[in-house]
């Protein structure tokens, strides 16, 4: 399947929830240094639920579409549920097959959001290998 399916390109060109939240409860940055993809997210949290979400930054179509689609899925959801999401969920949301070489692009949004939540709880942040260990794959820059 073409990774640049219509829905991916639509989200890339017209992303949902792009911008900044005034008075966000937590903001967090992550980058995919080898590609130069950079994301910043702002979250509003109420009663352990994500009530509002915005992202900014730039990068490839996969990273941008993935955070746009992810945002639509997670607003209104509980933080514990969002923290449980993994690579398979991201692939399901994207609806295209993601090759190993684009896995980091697809996951950048999820790691940024999950680390923002962990940061708000004062917990230890996730690292890339936490995502890839699950699939028993060796990923490096």
């Amino acid at each position, binding site marked *: 399947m073409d990774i640049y399916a219509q829905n991916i*390109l639509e989200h*890339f060109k017209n992303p949902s929830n792009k911008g900044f939240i005034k008075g966000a409860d937590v903001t967090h940055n992550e980058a995919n240094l080898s*590609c130069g993809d950079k994301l910043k997210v702002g979250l509003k949290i109420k009663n352990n639920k994500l009530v509002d979400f915005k992202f900014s930054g*730039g990068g*490839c*179509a996969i990273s941008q579409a993935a955070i746009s689609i992810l945002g639509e899925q997670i607003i209104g959801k509980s933080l514990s549920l969002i923290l449980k999401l993994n690579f398979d969920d991201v692939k399901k949301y994207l609806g295209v097959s993601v*090759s190993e070489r684009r896995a980091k692009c697809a996951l950048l949004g999820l790691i940024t959001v999950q680390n923002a939540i962990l940061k708000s709880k004062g917990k230890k942040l996730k690292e890339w290998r936490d995502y890839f260990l699950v699939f028993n794959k060796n990923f490096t820059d």
Partner: protein
Amino acid sequence: MKNIRGQFPILTKKINGRAMIYFDNAATSQKPQSVINSMVDFYTKHNSNVHRGINPLAEEATRQYENARKKVKEFINANSTQEIIFTKGATESINLIAQSWGRKNLKKGDIVVLSIAEHHANFVPWLQLKKEIGIEIDVISLTGKGYLDIQKAKNLLTQKKVKLLALTLCSNVLGAIETRSIVSLQKIARANNIKILLDASQAISHIVVNVKKLNCDFLAFSGHKMFGPTGCGVLYGKNELLEKIPAWQGGGDMIREVFTNKFSENNLPYKFEAGTPNIAGAIGLGVAVDFIKKTGFKNILKKEEELTNYFLKKIKECDFAVLHGPTISKDRILVFSLTIKGVHPHDAADALGQKGIILRAGHHCAQPLHDYLKVSATLRASLSFYNTTEEIDLFFKELKKVYQKFN
């Protein structure tokens, strides 16, 4: 130059049913059958360790290994084979100089001058010394077209504490050939007792590299970017300088005598070749030199100039892509780094890869340069003389489709 492509077996490969177009030669060049055969031949008929053992098989292996050194010596016009150290590649060659020459000769506050266009391999070893002993690093910026800014370089070199000028002969991103600039910096470097290290990794298969004409103190390159195998590269150093600096790694081959409380070092070049070397790799590199000679460097350069001119013409006609680096063919090698309007380089490389066009996207191990250019990444098409104008046409045709899809 008949049937050049036929000598590179991988060039008939298909990807997704399409003929592969290999435009990633700056990362590694493809290997001719003669190089592949030489390594198979070594392991099939001559495999033994070198410089050891009084036996006829070790003698065969040693003869082949040393013969490769002779070929490399002639290829870069060094004075003697003592000046040719086999390493793992250009990265290890530069690390060797930083760790051995650098630790012995540099002290806190001394300055190493680099250009902003250096590969990480010529940045990090010096940054490590900055961390370790407190040396300073000064960086030469570029002119608008991506050439070394000679005036700035001259200003930096007149500082008292500059001990080393470490520059790439050809940037792996911009493709600019800096031979003339480097030669023009010689006088000022010599007058101030500044040593010169050149990174010839990109230059080695695209311009004639003559260490006597360049009058450099050290020069580093990798065999795999000049049709040889991976894992074998070269450090050239002037004999009198290499004599004066201590061995880097310790082990077999680099010693003359070892006692429980001391050791003495072997002669050059063995002093810097601790442990069993990449014997088959060196032999393959020697055969890569043979391949270039047999094909004729002049013929290779002529074909490359044609391809460069053609690519430059096509990029000029292209209104959605910007080329970084010189636009005059005689000033550049066939490494073309592009920014595509509205398309992230990774998307372009992935989409074109699906069409069998092999490119690289990212910062190409030159993050300081990309920061300087204010782009996070570029799409790099790097060609070799075995590429064709038809392949360039196809590349631009497919690139246009990608651009249209994203915009």
